[in-house]
C-alpha cells in the first residue's frame, strides 16, 4: 500500500513476525500441492476460501480491536445472532439481509464501545458480557431452532454461488472489506490513530488525537465484521445458526496473533492477519486430505489438538525470530 509495504526487505526487517506467517503459509501450501492430487483444484480452493471467509472477516475486525490494545470476545456470538437476523430477513433478498445483519453487528459493537469508552469497563469484561447477551439473544429470537432461509430469494447466492463464475460472492465481499480496511490502516488518520492508541493511549491523548472516536470505530467495525460473517454463515448453510460461533473469537484472536500483531496493540498488519486466518484454516484442510488418503484416520478432536500444537509452534517460531531482531528491545 505505502512505500513501506511494497519494499519487501524493509517489510521483513521491520515485521519479521509477519514474514514468518507468510513463510509458513507458503510452506504449507507447497506441502499440500506436492502431497495431494486435488489440493490445488478449483473445487478445493473455492470451498476452502468460502468456508474460511467467515473467519477471515472476523479476524480482520478483531485485528483492529487488538491494535488498539483491546479485545472483542463477542464476535462469535454476534455472528450467530446476526445469522438468525439474516435468515429472518432473507425473504427480502440479500440487499436487505446483508445491511440488516451488518447493522445489527454494528449495534452490538456500539454497545461494546459505550461500555468501554463511556462506562470505562475493561474490554475483556464488556465484550464478555456482550458475548453472553448475544448468545442468549440468538437463542431467544430463534426459539433455539435453526431458522431456515428463504431459498426462493437471492439470499443464498451469497454463500453458494460465484461472482462472474469465478469466486463465491462471500469471498468477493470479504476481499473487498479486507482491501478497504488495509487502506484504512495504512493510509488514513483513523488507521494511524488506531495504531497509536495501541502503542500508548496516554501519549495519543496528549498528542491531541481523537482517541474515543477511533476506539468506538474499532468495536463497531468488529461487530460489523461479525455481521458479515453471520450472513455468510446463514447463506452458506441455508439457515440461521443460533448455536454456531462458539470459540470463533478465540480462533480470530489466534489468527491475529499468528499474523504477528502484538496482543498489547500498536503493531500489526491486516494482510498478515488474513494470512494467519488462512494458515489456521489450512491446517484443517490438510488434515482432511490426510484422512482422505486413508493412510491415517484422525478424529475431529485430534485435529483440534494438532491445530493447537501447530499454533504453538508458529508462535514459538515468531518469538525466536523477533528476539533476534536487532533493536527489538527498548533502548536502555
Amino acid at each position, binding site marked *: 500500500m505505502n512505500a513501506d509495504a511494497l519494499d519487501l526487505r524493509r517489510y521483513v526487517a521491520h515485521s519479521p513476525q509477519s514474514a514468518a506467517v507468510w513463510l509458513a503459509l507458503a510452506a504449507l501450501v507447497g506441502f499440500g500441492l506436492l502431497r495431494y492430487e486435488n489440493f490445488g483444484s478449483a473445487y478445493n480452493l473455492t470451498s476452502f476460501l468460502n468456508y474460511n471467509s467467515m473467519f477471515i472477516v472476523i479476524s480482520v475486525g478483531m485485528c483492529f480491536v487488538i491494535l488498539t490494545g483491546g479485545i472483542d470476545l463477542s464476535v462469535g456470538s454476534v455472528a450467530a445472532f446476526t445469522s438468525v437476523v439474516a435468515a429472518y430477513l432473507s425473504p427480502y433478498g440479500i440487499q436487505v439481509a446483508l445491511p440488516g445483519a451488518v447493522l445489527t453487528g454494528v449495534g452490538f459493537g456500539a454497545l461494546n464501545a459505550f461500555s468501554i469508552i463511556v462506562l470505562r469497563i475493561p474490554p475483556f469484561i464488556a465484550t464478555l458480557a456482550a458475548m453472553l447477551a448475544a448468545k442468549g439473544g440468538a437463542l431467544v429470537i430463534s426459539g433455539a431452532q435453526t431458522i431456515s432461509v428463504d431459498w426462493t430469494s437471492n439470499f443464498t447466492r451469497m454463500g453458494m454461488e460465484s461472482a462472474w463464475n469465478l469466486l463465491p460472492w462471500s469471498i468477493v465481499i470479504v476481499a473487498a472489506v479486507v482491501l478497504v480496511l488495509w487502506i484504512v490502516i495504512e493510509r488514513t488518520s483513523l488507521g494511524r*490513530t488506531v*495504531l497509536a492508541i495501541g*502503542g500508548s493511549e496516554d501519549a495519543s491523548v496528549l*498528542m491531541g*488525537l481523537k482517541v474515543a472516536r477511533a476506539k468506538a470505530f474499532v468495536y463497531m467495525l468488529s461487530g460489523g465484521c461479525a455481521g458479515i460473517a453471520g450472513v455468510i454463515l446463514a447463506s452458506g448453510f441455508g439457515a440461521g445458526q443460533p448455536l454456531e460461533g462458539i470459540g470463533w473469537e478465540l480462533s480470530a484472536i489466534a489468527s491475529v496473533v499468528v499474523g504477528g500483531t502484538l496482543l498489547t496493540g500498536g*503493531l500489526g498488519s491486516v494482510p498478515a492477519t488474513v494470512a494467519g486466518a488462512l494458515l489456521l484454516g489450512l491446517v484443517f484442510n490438510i488434515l482432511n486430505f490426510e484422512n482422505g488418503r486413508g493412510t491415517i484416520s484422525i478424529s475431529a478432536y485430534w485435529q483440534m489438538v494438532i491445530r493447537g500444537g501447530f499454533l504453538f509452534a508458529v508462535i514459538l517460531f515468531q518469538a525466536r525470530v523477533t528476539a533476534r531482531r536487532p533493536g527489538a528491545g527498548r533502548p536502555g
Partner: protein
Amino acid sequence: MQPLLSMTGVEKAFNGATALAGASLEILPGEVHALIGQNGAGKSTLIKILTGVYRRDAGQVLFRGAPARIAGPREAQEAGIATIYQELNLVPLRSVTENMIMGYEPKRLGVFIDWREAHRRAREILMRFGIDIDVRAPLGSYSTAIQQLVAIARAVSLDARLVIMDEPTSSLDASEIEVLFGVVRGLRAAGVSVLYVSHFLDELFAICDRVTTMRDGRTVDCRPIAGATKLDLIGAMLGRDTAEIAADGMTEFGGGAARQGEILLRAEGVATGPRLSRLDLTLHRGEIVGLGGLLGSGRTEAARALFGEDPVTAGAIRLKDAPSAPATPAQAIARGIGFLSEDRKAEGIVPGMSVRENLTLALLPRLARNGQVDRARERALVQRFIDALGIKTADMEQPIRELSGGNQQKVLLARWLAIEPEVLILDEPTRGVDVGAKREIQAIIRDFVGQGHGVVLISSEFEELVEGADRIVVLNEGRTVTELANPGITEDRLVRALAHDRRVTA
C-alpha cells in the same frame, strides 16, 4: 514587552486538598523560563492547568494578551502551547514520521495520507535540529535523547509559541544534554518561549533567563537567573535561610567520620560478563561505600553481582565469614542483603497497592502466623516506619501511586529496612526526588549504617557520592580502577579518577 503568558491567582483543589493557592507565572516572548520547587510544590498542577488537563478553580490565564480558553491537549496545541512530558508523550512502536505528524498528516484527496510528503516533512524538520535519521524506523529504536528531540521537533513544527519541558534531561547523558541546550537556544533565537522545569539547578544557570520558584502551591519568588546563586534558589524552594544551608552543607550525609569495623562484604576480582570484568570492593560495618563511575562503567552490574542476580564467572564474593556468595536474590535476601533498584516504577512499587501493602510485601512470610498475616503486628510495624522515616501519607491505606516520588522512595527504603538487612545496596536512591526528601533519605541511610550495618551506594550525582560516601570505589569499563577515601574526596578528584587519570591513582 507584553508577556506571552500571564497566570495570576491560580487556585486548584483536589477533593478538598489544596494543590494551588495563589500561583502565578509570567513568561515573556523568546524567554527561557525556569520553574522550580520541591515535589508537591504545585509545578505539575500549574502546568496541567495551562495545558488544559485540569480545570482551575480560580485565577486568570492570559495567553498572547487574551484570556486563554484551553479545554484539552488538542486546544493547547492549537493555541501554540506544546508540552514535552517527562514520560515521553510519544509512541515508541510507531515510526518517527508518524510520531511527528500524527493528527496533522499531509493528505491526498482529503483522506489518504501522503506518506512520501510526510516522510519528507519529518526529515526536513529534524534536519533543522541537526538530526539525520531514518524517519521510517520505529521511534523506539532510537535513544532517549533522539526521542526527546523528536518530541520537541513535533512541538515546534506545530507552530508552538511556548514549549513546556518537564525534566527534559533526566534521562540524557552529558553530550545529549548539550544537543538539547542547543535546541533550546535555537528556540529562543526564533522567538519561541520555553518553560523549563528541572531538579538540576546547574542546568538552569546554563540556559535559563528567569526563574520562578513555587512552594506549597504558591509562587514565592521570580527573579532573573543572572545574579542568583544556587543557594538562593534552594533557600527559596525550601523556605530556609541561605546562610543556614551553607553552614549545613548541601547534603545530609556527612561522610568520612565512620569507624571501620568488621568486614561485611568483600568482592575480589569479580566478573560477570563483558560489562563487569574485575570488581574489587570491601565493605565494613558502619560504612557507606560509593560506587563511582560513568554510565556504562559497570556500576549497576556490580550491584547485580553482589545481590546474586548475575552469576559470577570469575573471582569471589564473601559475605561476612561465609566463603560463598549468594547465588540468587532470594539467597541474598535470606543472608541479609537488600537491593533498592534504580527503576522505582518498574521494579519497585506496586502502584495500585496501598502504602501498607507495598511496605510489607517482602516481609509477609515473617508476619504470618499459621499462614495468616498478623494484621495488628503488620499495622504496628508500618506505623513505626511511617513515623521513623517521616513518610507523608494520608494514612497507610492510601495507594502508593498517589504519593510523591520522594515518599514512594521512602516506602521502598522502609520495605528493605523492615527485613533488617545487614547490607543495603542502593542504586540511585535519591533520583527524581526533591531536595527536601533527598536530605531526609540521606539521613535515613546514614542512620542505618550508624547501627553497624553497611551500604553500597550508587549515584550519578557526584555531590552525593563525594559528601555521602566514606570511601568511593571507582569503576571504569567494568573494572575497579581506584579507591578514594573520605575525608579528602572532592568532586574534582572524583572526576579525574573517573577519567582514570594516572596522577590520582598513583
